[in-house]
């Protein structure tokens, strides 16, 4: 197990290094940041001063080395647009993103597990087909289309919910729903399949044969066993939620989290913020994936044998 964990850790470090390097050189390749923040009427002398001020006059290799050293010290630079340390900006943004993420994960669990279980138990009746039809729609609809449709109906036509910003509980509803729809749909499908696998097992026939009531068979014997698969899928989904979903949903709802920070930094060429955002989100995703993998390896010896 220790060897497996170390191998995973090493892979994690290598991946992060690839990302940091890629991000650094990609931002340098796209032109000098000063030309984006300085505006049109910058004189050549002023431009040179600015370039020197931000340390952009050194060679790329030297900048890269400096950047790595700063990263190691926990120094992420200063935002070119807001003129504040990146770490200060990011700290303000982490909270709202986490709120959204936790809300989405809870909603996904609360809806998908019961829905998937029902769809498996009633797979031959209209109720099962309805659930799977809804799950299919949720799977096919892009989250920004859903978000726009929600805003259109719930904010503009019915006037029930605020269309953007964060603050009250009402602000939460649409972003969380739009963010989790896809994950609810896919987890419902996974839950149904996991339950179908379990429902055909011999020990369920035994449980019924010894006279247990059907709800007890379903929830105590079947769902419990299916839950291992379901939770590991959810673990992997959280990574996706944190990376892709947040970026889009936060932008649409003007939710001031990490994702919105990333997109506005990308549009304004705010390199230090962009670099930090990509690295932070990538790190979060990789950490989650590694943790899920380790947990999985701990639970199932076949996994760590196959991968080492």
């Amino acid at each position, binding site marked *: 197990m220790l060897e497996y964990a170390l191998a995973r850790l090493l892979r994690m470090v290598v991946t992060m290094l690839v990302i940091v390097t890629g991000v650094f050189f990609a931002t340098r390749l796209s032109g000098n940041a000063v030309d984006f923040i300085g505006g049109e009427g910058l004189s050549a002398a002023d431009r040179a001063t600015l370039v020197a001020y931000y340390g952009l006059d050194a060679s790329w290799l030297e900048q890269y080395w400096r950047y790595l050293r700063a990263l190691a010290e926990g120094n992420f630079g200063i935002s070119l647009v807001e003129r504040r340390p990146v770490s200060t900006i990011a700290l303000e943004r982490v909270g709202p993103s986490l709120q959204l993420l936790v809300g989405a994960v809870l909603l996904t669990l609360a809806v998908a597990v019961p829905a998937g279980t029902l769809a498996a138990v009633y797979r031959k009746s209209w109720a099962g087909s309805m659930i799977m039809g809804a799950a299919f729609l949720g799977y096919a609809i892009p989250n920004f*289309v859903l978000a*726009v449709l929600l805003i259109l109906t719930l904010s503009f036509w019915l006037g029930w919910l605020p269309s953007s910003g964060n603050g009250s509980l009402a602000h939460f509803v649409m972003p969380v729903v739009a963010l989790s729809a896809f994950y609810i749909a896919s987890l419902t499908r996974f839950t149904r399949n996991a339950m179908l696998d379990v429902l055909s097992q011999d020990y369920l026939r035994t449980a019924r044969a010894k006279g247990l009531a059907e709800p007890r068979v379903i929830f105590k014997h079947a769902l419990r066993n299916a839950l291992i698969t379901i939770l590991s899928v959810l673990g992997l989904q959280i990574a996706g939620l944190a990376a892709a979903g947040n970026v889009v949903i936060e932008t649409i709802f003007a939710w001031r989290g990490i994702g919105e920070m990333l997109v506005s930094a990308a549009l304004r060429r705010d390199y230090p913020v962009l670099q930090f955002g990509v690295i932070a*989100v990538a790190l979060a995703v*990789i950490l989650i994936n590694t943790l899920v993998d380790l947990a999985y390896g701990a639970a199932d010896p076949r996994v760590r044998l196959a991968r080492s």
Partner: protein
Amino acid sequence: MVHTTLSAPPAAPSLLHRATRLGAGLADVWADMNWIVRFTAVLGLVLVVLALAAPLIAPFDPNAQSLLSRLKPPMGLAGAKDGYLLGTDELGRDILSRCLHGLRLTLGVALLGAVIGLLLGGSLGLFAGIAGGRVDDLIMSLVDIQIAVPFTLVALLTVALLGGDLTVLIAVLGIAYWEQYARITRGEVLRLREMPFIEAARAAGASGWRIAVKHILPNLVSPLVVVFTVNISNIVLLESTLSFLGLGLRPPTATLGAMVGMGRDYLPSAPWIVAAPALLILLVTFVIQMLGDFLRDRTDVRLRER
């Protein structure tokens, strides 16, 4: 190849023969579909035809502005203007024409991206599976890195930095999911390598190249078709997400996602600007997902009884 026998029918299948065989195959697939899948297949065909014929059937130039007819609602609503079936946007451009051209671009870009992914991932997977050893290790660790990196972020970064060029966009979409093809191909190659018929071919003296092309490739087709189909829907999603965020092609050229993104500002006063392209994206992803599911279930025998 030269045929020495004269009495036997030609061994190389003629074009007509191939066409009838393809027709029979398609008829088989059609017979396996239930009415929902059939409906989706027809819908998909309609979408493809619309996309192909966009320059012929679009009533207006998609980028032609007409400031006199700005923000006109679709036909049937109060204030609609004759000729603008789905209304106009904030610059007086015809939404129907923009939708048709947007659909064409969206589908074209997604198809190209998927083909690049297939070629890149497929050949790397084939190479890893056949070569084995160090090469396999190297390619598989690339796959692992690709899985670990949240690609939407990479795409966002690349397009933001390199600009909304068609080539950049297609390249990004092509690299996005190559690892899926690589994994499937490698896995299948490893499985097939041990099969008796490959061993028989090797015993009969076939070269490694011949085995790869004649015996392994044909067996890869059906799993790859499934991945390819599902993949196109992922690529459509990724592309429309990027475009929606304003990180796609430079305006005025617009894919469907960009139309939704730009029209978002007019949502309260002119919801039709967003409604038509949003609905089209939904239709496209729905059709591809449905067909992908159908193909997967069809090739996976274990799922049939469910």
